[in-house]
């Protein structure tokens, strides 16, 4: 498989049908098949590194979190929780007033909280953790 980062080592690691993690000698990331990639909000695809999300590629350092929050049933509960915390810092960081933050807030507000075997809501957990710290009184 040819990836944006070179030839992949082997067939990759499937995360269910249509989502595969590829590694190369230099880097790696997820490929999301077109029919699934169409479910990723446009502005999140456009926010990916070099807009690679438009072609279904999501690099492994941070864009992976977009795949995990849009397709939570393909990842562990811990991974989904980490992805929400990461995405909250990236798109909904404290003091954010930009259009991307607004769009992200609207989108996540529409998502169900039942993201797996645990009863907690990763999105709300991540936001609460950040809010609790940023609103904590002094040192």
């Amino acid at each position: 498989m040819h990836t944006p980062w070179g030839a992949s080592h082997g067939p990759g690691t499937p995360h269910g049908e249509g989502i595969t993690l590829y590694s190369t000698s230099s880097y790696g990331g997820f490929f999301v098949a077109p029919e699934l990639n169409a479910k990723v909000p446009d502005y999140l695809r456009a926010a990916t590194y070099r807009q690679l999300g438009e072609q279904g590629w999501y690099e492994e350092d941070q864009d992976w979190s977009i795949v995990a929050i849009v397709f939570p049933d393909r990842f562990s509960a811990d991974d989904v929780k980490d992805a929400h915390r990461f995405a909250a810092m990236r798109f909904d960081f404290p003091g954010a007033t930009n259009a991307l933050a607004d769009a992200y807030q609207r989108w996540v507000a529409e998502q169900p909280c039942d993201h797996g075997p645990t009863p907690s809501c990763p999105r709300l957990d991540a936001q609460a953790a950040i809010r609790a710290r940023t609103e904590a009184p002094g040192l």
Partner: protein
Amino acid sequence: MTIAAIKDTARDARSLALSLNTDFANVQTYAEQGNAPLVDALMETIDAKMAQLAQYQREINAAAGRRGQIIEHRRA
């Protein structure tokens, strides 16, 4: 601020710094495309993230300094 809070702040700072890497890469892409409005919009985001990053740095510095004083006090 507790050590646990410092750890959380440092994690959030790392996430924010990592996202700046992508933001700057996309500024470069938008500039190559000649898309000035998107460059402007993304630079506003980058400005806000840089300010937040500086705030995290101040919080960690202050917390680390305070803990250092406590340790010195206990040793005295």
